[in-house]
């Protein structure tokens, strides 16, 4: 595989099996090929057991593919992590319960190669940003799941790494901290860092991600842009009363739920929408409202999963 300079992560036919097949081993990834460009926020979604965590483990060099090849910035993933480091937030952040928050962050900052006053500055900045001031001297064992997740996020902020991998980071966070978390992640992406995010929260992914990789049973089912520049525009048209003329002017219109007055329609541009609406009005249709209605990510994921393997 020839490394592409613009690609941060390249996977070619990567498969990963846990345990030998004759003992009922699990095929976690099955021929995954992906090219993730440098910068931006890339989400990996999929049902439980789809292979998201395994994919991240291969990207970070924790695991080696059973077959296929993985590269990060043109390097073997393990070499990349050892040379450049990565910001990583696991699904469940854990370290020895006897350590305090402050000790934990100081120790990990030291492993980042940060020393002295700079280390203290970074540790206290991370504590302040994650609102952990009151917990700084508490032992990890005494923290709730949500607070531990915040410590997990704080440790990912200690060094400015180009690669940021967040595996279900908002699991256990309260709504307020979910909102703050989004701000932090957007900051990562704005700074030109390559962020990989796994989440079951599709609304969150929709707000944050530029691209989505949909995994199912260890295979890439679909890769799509969250806000594609070339996609058709989608609108919700609401009529004052049912009108057969709507289906004549918008043959592909899809009713909103079971409604006979509200429909979703797709057009290439605003001019096409105006032309068709004019035709609808000319046929006697009475339009009550027209609103932009981009297809929710949830709907796209559901549709992709329902369509079956590509």
């Amino acid at each position, binding site marked *: 595989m020839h490394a592409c300079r613009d690609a941060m992560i390249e996977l070619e036919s990567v498969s990963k099996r846990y345990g030998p097949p004759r003992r009922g081993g699990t095929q976690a990834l099955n021929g995954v090929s992906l090219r993730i460009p440098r910068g931006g926020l890339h989400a990996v979604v999929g049902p439980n057991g789809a292979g998201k965590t395994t994919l991240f483990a291969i990207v*970070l060099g924790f695991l*080696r593919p059973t077959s296929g090849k993985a590269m990060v910035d043109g390097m073997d993933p393990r070499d990349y992590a*050892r040379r450049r*480091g990565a910001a990583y937030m696991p699904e469940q952040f854990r370290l020895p319960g006897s350590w305090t928050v402050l000790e934990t962050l100081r120790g990990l900052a030291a492993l*980042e190669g940060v020393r002295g006053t700079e280390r203290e500055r970074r540790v206290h900045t991370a504590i302040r940003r994650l609102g952990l001031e009151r917990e700084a001297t508490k032992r990890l064992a005494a923290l709730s799941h949500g607070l531990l997740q915040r410590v997990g996020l704080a440790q990912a902020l200690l060094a400015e790494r180009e690669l940021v991998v967040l595996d279900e980071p908002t699991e256990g966070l309260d709504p307020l901290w979910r909102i703050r978390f989004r701000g932090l992640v957007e900051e990562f992406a704005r700074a030109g860092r390559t962020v990989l995010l796994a989440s079951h929260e599709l609304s969150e992914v929709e707000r944050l991600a530029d691209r989505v990789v949909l995994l199912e049973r260890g295979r890439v089912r679909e890769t799509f842009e969250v806000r594609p520049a070339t996609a058709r525009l989608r609108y919700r048209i609401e009529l004052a009363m049912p009108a057969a003329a709507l289906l004549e002017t918008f043959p592909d219109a899809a009713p909103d739920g079971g409604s006979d007055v509200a429909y979703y329609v797709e057009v290439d541009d605003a001019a096409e929408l105006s032309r068709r609406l004019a035709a609808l009005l000319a046929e006697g249709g009475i339009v009550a409202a027209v609103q932009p209605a981009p297809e929710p990510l949830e709907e796209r994921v559901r549709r992709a999963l329902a369509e079956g393997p590509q």
Partner: protein
Amino acid sequence: MRSVALVGLALKARGRRLAVLAAFAAVFVAAAIAVRLLTGGAHGHVELDPLFLTGGYPLVSALLLLGWVLGRFPLIATLVLVAGLVSDDRARGYARIYAVRPTSPILVYGVRLLVLLAAAFALSAILLPTFDLIMLGEWAGPATLVLILAYVLVYGGLTAFLSVWTRADAWITLLLAVTALVWDALRSAGRLATAPPGIIEVVTFLLPPQRALFALESAFAQVQPIPWEAFAHAAGYGLLWLILAGVALMNRET
């Protein structure tokens, strides 16, 4: 030194085990003081005759057993402290938190192992001479420390290597230690004469060097000069496993 920052944390994470070992050591010291008070005569050491008169065979046997277990304290301390060095971190997911930092895992775990081995050595180096002083009224000099160091290196190296692979690291080491004891006894008794050629040498090479450790123990017990060859053998065995542990650590999945 990035990994030095984790020295204090490594000890803190092992705080409970250190406390248990200290309590275990305190039992030995308390027993020694009790025996000394019960039977210590004008000669400045514990005498077996008064001990026998006080408690009969059970008390004498208990004291001998205590002495034998005490001789294994460096092994026990090493196993308790080093158990799960890498394997616990892997199983609990801690290893991945360290692995994304640009610091070699050899440094992370090497420094931690060094600290834990030093703690096992220090605990044993306090307990064994203290016990000797109470029971015998004198200490055997640096031979005690050399013996402790040999135990710590042999079993620390072996446990560290196994820890890269399995959570049963300390149990397997203990099993190998017992096997080595039996194997050495069989060898000494000439019971392995019919074994196929090469087998004895290979098994003896792989098992902990019980004969070397026994040579060090004997020299210590009989107040003879330290057999440095035996120490070199034991230390070499431990260092070999440490090197293999480092190689395995760099290549094993996290």
